[in-house]
């Protein structure tokens, strides 16, 4: 059972590694030359593929999930996965040298796992321990690795070359992938992603209202947001 899962994992690794290997030789057909997006042609087709997948499968499922699951249960599910995620966030904060933030993340896990009944209730936020957002892409950024080119991955969506390496590190360290048996592990991951997608539904209105070209709007939003996250919400102002 473990073998089938690691095969699943290695398939992802293979796809991402192949892309990272071959894309540098792939020149964008149009000479538009956006410095952050040299693989725009490839990215745009991958973007349409992901959009299509979302439209016919993921979004309808997320809508169904939201319609069926009552809000309190939905909150419990979100909290449960957030609590597990806080472990990896603590590790990343520590790797970035942010000891205080890391200790607070661990404090969150301890409080929410006990007082918050195995993470079903987020008591820590109310006690002033804010939830952070960290991953290996940000850690690599903190260590001084630049973005590299923008890259739209199949299914996973917006990344950069650096964040793709971040993802390759995040995936095997995701506690949900350690769950046995494999079937349960997949179900948990599916539930988590569905819950996360459902939480995104209301934000679509903003993109719809703001985007003139959805692809470039989401690309630039991704790049800005990653910069904001790496600097923990205090990025230096960019002029021109």
């Amino acid at each position, binding site marked *: 059972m473990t073998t089938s899962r690691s095969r699943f994992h290695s398939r992802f690794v293979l796809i991402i590694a192949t892309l990272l290997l071959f894309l540098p030789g792939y020149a964008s057909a149009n000479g538009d030359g956006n410095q952050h997006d040299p693989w725009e042609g490839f990215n745009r087709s991958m973007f349409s593929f992901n959009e299509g997948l979302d439209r016919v499968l993921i979004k309808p499922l997320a809508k169904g999930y939201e319609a069926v699951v009552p809000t309190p249960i939905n909150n419990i599910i979100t909290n449960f996965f957030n609590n597990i995620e806080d472990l990896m966030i603590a590790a990343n904060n520590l790797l970035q040298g942010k000891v205080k933030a890391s200790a607070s993340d661990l404090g969150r896990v301890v409080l929410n796992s006990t007082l918050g009944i195995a993470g079903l209730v987020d008591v820590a936020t109310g006690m002033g321990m804010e939830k952070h957002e960290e991953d290996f892409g940000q850690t690599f950024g903190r260590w001084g690795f630049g973005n590299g080119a923008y890259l739209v991955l199949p299914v996973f969506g917006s990344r950069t070359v650096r964040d793709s390496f971040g993802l390759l590190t995040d995936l095997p360290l995701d506690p949900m992938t350690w769950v046995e048996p494999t079937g349960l592990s997949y179900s948990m991951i599916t539930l988590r992603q569905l819950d996360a997608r459902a939480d995104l539904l209301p934000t679509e209105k*903003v993109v719809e209202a703001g985007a003139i070209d959805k692809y470039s*709007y989401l690309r630039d939003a991704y790049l800005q947001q990653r910069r904001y996250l790496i600097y923990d919400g205090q990025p230096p102002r960019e002029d021109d």
Partner: protein
Amino acid sequence: MIDAIEKKINKETMMNRLFGLILALLVAAPTWAAEALTPETQIKNITNEVLEIIRNDTELQQNGITATAIAMIDAKVLQPHFNFSHMTSLGMGKEWRKASPEQQGLLVREFKTLLVRTYSNALTIYKDPTINFKPARYQPTDTEVLIRTQVLQPGTKTVDIDYSLEKLGDGWKVFDVVVAGVSLVTNYRQFFSQEIRNGGIEGAIKSLQAKNQTP
């Protein structure tokens, strides 16, 4: 006789003085009122007023915010407190200077429509949000201030909305809004340079107009 004339003149000058004083007060009062507002209060008022309009927008529950509510948000809240020409020049980056004054006027008008819509929608992400205002750090002499807010709804992700304000003659004006790390203003820079490379400033204006005409 002369006495009477003198009295009349005196009376007139007094009236004139009084009138002048009242006029001066009338002109100065709004400025005083605006200056008394700290950037935090300014943002608190803006957010509360916008949320109030959204709450009263009955159609919001089903179809998203209505055009009427957006128009109201624009006229009552954003127009007086947002510096849209600064926002447009910031959003266009170095392309701004390539536009003629008439084109700049058109760009500001269209970009404003787009921003008002996007911002209004950003505040409708959650149905009944609580807004948390983070303590602001700035000196009394500062002319540029960042105010951070958090939009909270239990069980979902917190959305950070940060506002950049600048001190102008008639009070603090917002010139940038950053939602979850994404500036609603500067997120168009790449788009603008690409658009202008392909179709010039006129092309960019046309795209904005086309976007704003979609319901």
